[in-house]
């Protein structure tokens, strides 16, 4: 078993915690003793953070809608179809017809890339996230 020091995802406090990794699975967590926020303490959500990581309901393949159902597809199909759909909306109605929601749960780097993608590739400033909810 080994530990990986990372940052909790459950609130704006941003506790430092160790993820216990065994057989390539996250199997538990523990607070960092010296981290300035967590100081050897986690709330109940942080102590059970691994449970959602390994949950059997995790999405594991791309899905494309066929009629009423979402059916598994390859990455190529899903990405090509998405690019073609967003591209045609952009070309027909302009970027202002596309809306992009970034995420307060994703990393800085991902949010940076998503707003850059919205403003460059999609040519729209319609980008926001649930900062106020």
């Amino acid at each position, binding site marked *: 078993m080994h530990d990986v020091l*990372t940052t909790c995802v459950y609130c704006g406090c941003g506790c430092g915690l160790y993820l216990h990794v065994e057989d390539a699975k996250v199997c538990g967590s523990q607070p960092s003793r010296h981290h300035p926020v967590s100081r050897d303490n986690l709330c109940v*959500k942080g102590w059970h953070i691994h449970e959602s990581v390994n949950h059997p309901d*995790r*999405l*594991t393949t*791309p899905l494309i809608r066929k009629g009423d159902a979402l059916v598994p597809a390859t990455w190529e199909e899903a990405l090509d179809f998405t690019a073609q759909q967003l591209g045609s909306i952009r070309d027909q109605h302009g970027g202002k017809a596309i*809306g992009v929601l970034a995420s307060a749960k994703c990393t*800085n780097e991902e949010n940076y*890339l998503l707003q850059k993608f919205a403003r460059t590739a999609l040519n729209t*400033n319609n980008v926001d996230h649930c900062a106020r909810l």
Partner: protein
Amino acid sequence: MAGLATTFGSGAMTNSINEIENAEVILVSGSNTTEAHPQVARRMLDAVDRGARLIVIDPRRTRLAECAHLHLALRPGTDIPLLNAMMRVLLDEGLADDLFIEMRTENFLALRDMLNRLDLEATAALTGVPLALISQAAQLYGRARKAVICYCLGVTQHVCGTENVQTIANLAMLAGHIEKEDTGVDPLRGQNNVQGACDMGALPNMLPSYQAVANQDYRDKFERAWGVSLPEAPGKTLVEMTHGGAQGSIRGMYIMGENPMLSDPTLKKVEETLRGLDFLVVSDIFLTETARLAQVVFPAACFAEKSGSFTNSERRVQMVRQAVTPPGECRADSEIIMELSGRLGYGMEYNSSAEVMEEIAMLSPIYGGMHHDRLDQSWGLQWPCWDRSHPGTPFLHKYYFTRGRGHFMPAGHTAPGELPDPEYPLLLMTGRIYHHYHTGTMTRKSERLTRECDHAVLQINPADAKAHGLRQGESVRLSSRRGEITLAAEITDQVATGMVYTTFHFHEAPINLLTNDAFDTGSGCPEYKVCAVRVKKMVNS
């Protein structure tokens, strides 16, 4: 955020979380801190143990309010009159910090004139808090050497959210409680990286590091760096996008790791809008209520399966480190975005999140010295961090405000968008609980968290419960002009008569079917803290 940006120049906590435990007086407004920010609450209670005085402004008797020396149980939506009354007391008692006001602020006369015209008795009566208690709180805050104000969504989720925040800023500046260590104004950010998402420019009117879209110079800078011409007009806010209607101007949406089908107000409108789109793509780790409506769903890697950084509420940018490989075919959102961008004719290539951060540092002054190698070897860095040798900034506005001088923004009372009436006689407030996080997409997958709490409850005062013939745990039908849900009653005097309270974590009882879509024009924040509802006991359920 809009509120502090206009008064101080930066929409973020002015202090570090650890500074709170050194304050002499802590004023908490609209924050259920023990449940939503456990580590911050720990600092507050530690401070109380050391002799600090705690003042809580909240309509509910929260756990923190029970520990408070003064609990100001105001009527929901009367934050501005309450704070204005406190400021008037400071003026009358000679507790205004004249030197600070003279040296560091502007527009004070407008505030002073407004306060002097105030009918103190009438203002206090509006809030439902006895004037003596308001006066006591004002004097406690005003006389402290080191005082912090912590506030959260109870302040911002009102039609006048921006003015509420500005009024808090007015109070802090009037008392001179800013610019020093252990003293300041601290908005507690709800989600783990809400500060970071704002910093990164995931906002319709701001490029990264709060460089306004409307400013030609900033657009020029990013156009040169990115090699494209950028749209000039600020975009639509979240609620404008999700409430556009089936035939709205937005025809396609890309939603990354958000669940507006539970989190946004007036869900019926959100559903109608999302179903009416020509195309919806959702990237998430679980099949959320929103993903179910999509044409394409991308399986995303979760925090344990990728690297990058989060920025916490105290502006601390910290590393997220990959512990395991993603399950199945999941990919990190950054990879997905790069794939799509290439296909849409704008190539983006980065070999690592560290490389993305190099670009962020180059274009965002407040992240100028944030590089992964530095973050990796420390407990993170607090912005502003201007360059590689800058140590980061534990507290803001030392010597001068980000915007130069602090700007007083006097405001008067604004009534909520909807108040109880004979047809819908109760006032509904929504919020969070300790065991769950946001729309429950992750926490409700946890067996132990679910064991502790697995259903929504409606907090109702014993007198109201009696009037409706309700007993503990019985099912009630809760309805507003916009929708209805069924949930269990929890009879408690944490809520006053005439008020009920519940959470938005549970898809079985989606409270946002009921909430009002009135929102704050300054920030786009919906009014989750006030709407009118009625309850009805369910028979034989």
